[in-house]
């Protein structure tokens, strides 16, 4: 290491005078970008692989079998062997894993041991419920949390700020389903404004859908809104103290103008990270609200399957939700890079066009 330290300035010093020539600079711009892309791809692939191994291992460790699931106590050893053979469970574990993953990549997660309905079909029927509510919850969380965070930062130290801080720390001590119960009591039992349960698909009637989905969405969003508000307030107040913000204010721009025009964009990065973290919570929380509001979603599917020991369905739901979380985290990651000027400079061309 000690030998390398003086070598470094030479390495960087040599290309510096040559930099104006186009080809090396293009290479210098794209190579780190490609390298970071490659590492994101490698990380995502590894995470997906490990998630599939963990999921499959759960199934492999299970002692339930299709005969027991379908026939219950009356299953004879012959039945068990026959059905095990039919579902390919008498093969080597590695072979089973490879065929399971291979089929999953083609959109086939096997058939339910109990109803023999393809798992993909049941999940495809249930997933829109969770996804639509999760998206609604995320939107509400960004609106509520963003509003509260910006308001708190504007009234830094004022009563609104203190109220937001208090509500955020109180919300963090409650599981989301209790918030949901409070909402049911308030809006369904006391005010009788909204239904306490039931569901109409978004594709059938968006207005009715919103009537049924707004309470679950709100229940799911408040927890996340609290973390967004807390993070946004912290990074906004930090950024407002930076030189560029103080300078803009001294040149006569109003506090609001500085906040929305200059600071918000820079404070959005850490907030996006918080949103990224919240995605597994929202997807997992959607499961809770389903039970709470009686929605026909993935959780009901998974819970029923878990009760009957219907392993393919259980594994299918876990794998699908994990893939959704990974995909959503990737989107957040891309957004973060787009917001971060240091990372964007790696892309070079887009920054030039925008100026």
């Amino acid at each position: 290491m000690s030998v390398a330290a003086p070598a470094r300035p030479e390495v960087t010093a040599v290309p510096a005078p040559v930099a104006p020539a186009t080809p090396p600079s293009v290479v210098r711009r794209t190579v780190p970008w490609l390298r970071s892309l490659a590492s994101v791809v490698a990380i995502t692939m590894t995470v997906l692989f490990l998630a599939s191994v963990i999921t499959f291992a759960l199934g492999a460790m299970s002692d339930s079998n299709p005969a027991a699931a379908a026939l219950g106590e009356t299953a004879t050893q012959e039945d068990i062997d026959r059905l095990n053979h039919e579902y390919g469970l008498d093969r080597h574990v590695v072979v089973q894993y490879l065929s399971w993953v291979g089929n999953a990549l083609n959109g086939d997660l096997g058939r339910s041991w109990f109803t023999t309905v393809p798992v993909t079909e049941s999940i495809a029927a249930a997933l829109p419920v969770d996804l639509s509510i999760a998206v609604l919850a995320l939107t509400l969380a960004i609106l509520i949390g963003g509003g509260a965070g910006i308001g708190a930062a504007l009234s830094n130290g004022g009563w609104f700020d203190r109220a937001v801080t208090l509500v955020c720390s109180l919300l963090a001590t409650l599981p989301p389903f209790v918030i949901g119960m409070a909402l049911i009591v308030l809006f369904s039992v006391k005010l009788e404004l909204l239904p306490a349960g039931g569901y109409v698909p978004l594709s059938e009637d968006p207005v009715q859908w919103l009537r049924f989905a707004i309470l679950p969405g709100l229940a799911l969003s408040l927890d996340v809104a609290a973390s967004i508000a807390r993070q946004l307030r912290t990074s906004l107040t930090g950024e407002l103290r930076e030189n560029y913000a103080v300078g803009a204010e001294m040149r006569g721009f109003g506090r609001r103008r500085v906040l929305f025009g200059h600071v918000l964009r820079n404070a959005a990065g850490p907030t996006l990270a918080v949103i990224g973290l919240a995605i597994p919570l929202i997807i997992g929380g959607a499961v809770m609200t389903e039970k709470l509001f009686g929605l026909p979603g993935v959780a009901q599917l998974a819970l029923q399957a878990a009760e009957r020991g219907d392993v393919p369905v259980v594994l299918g739901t876990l794998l699908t939700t994990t893939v959704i979380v990974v995909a959503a985290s990737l989107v957040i990651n891309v957004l973060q890079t787009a917001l971060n000027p240091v990372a964007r400079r790696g892309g070079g061309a887009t920054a030039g066009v925008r100026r």
Partner: protein
Amino acid sequence: MRTLAALWRVPSARFAMIVLLAVGFLAVLGGALAPHDPLQQYTDRVLQGPSSDHLLGTDYVGRDVLSRLMEGTRLSVIGALEAVVIGGLLGVPTGLASAWLGPRLEWVTLRVSDTLVVLPFTVFAIAVAGTLGNGLQQAMIAIGILISPIFYRVTRAATLGLRKVQYVEAAELMGATEWWTLRRHIWSKVLPNVAVAAAHATGAALLVVASLAFLGLGVTPPAPTWGGMLSSDLGYLAQQPWAPVFPAALMMATVGSLNLLADAIRDATGATAAPRRRRSTPARPREEQRDVSDTRDAVGV
């Protein structure tokens, strides 16, 4: 001991410790002190409000709510503690090892931790219940595994810079064994961070245990838990809209005290801010990738 005394002088920490001691007292002795049998059904007194005989009223089959709350504290608290202990046992050693034993192990453990972070808690717990059986042990192991990344990240972050610190290098030059250095120099820096993380994680685990009990996972129904009581209150919100207040208030007090205590420990020991939530998947590892390539450039490869 000195830290405890320092904590006691902070008003918010003192309040939190008193609440936690009370909850601990309930967890140990609550079942014995309960005025009624928590499973006894007074069928002539279903869904009653608070009275002198039943201080917090009765539930939908006429069981005494106060007794169920006192008895339920034990299972809820033990469940959460068990999950946190499992998470700590898995996360702390791997965190130390990943910062200490070099980049290859680090890459592997980071990816495992990334994977555990993206698995949604509830769906994973349902899957564990569906494949390995529905019981308290299975649920707690599942939660413990999923919260281990908190401990892993915190330990690793606290250890990361210390490998190159002068007094560690000096100790090594003077012939200290790795174990001695780890125990003497590293552990004292890591412990406060782990304590803060453990307090936060216990709060989070209490909420998760309650959520799972609400879904009917973990504790089997007749035995009372906070989450299970809330779950049974759900069906009778129209008759008893105030019923969820009692378990929810107890839970809020416990989790809130744990969070207060965590903040106080952090202030008292100067532990670096522990991440409140689990960390995101690709954001941080990528920076580290860049760090690795930077050092490689520096070496001149």
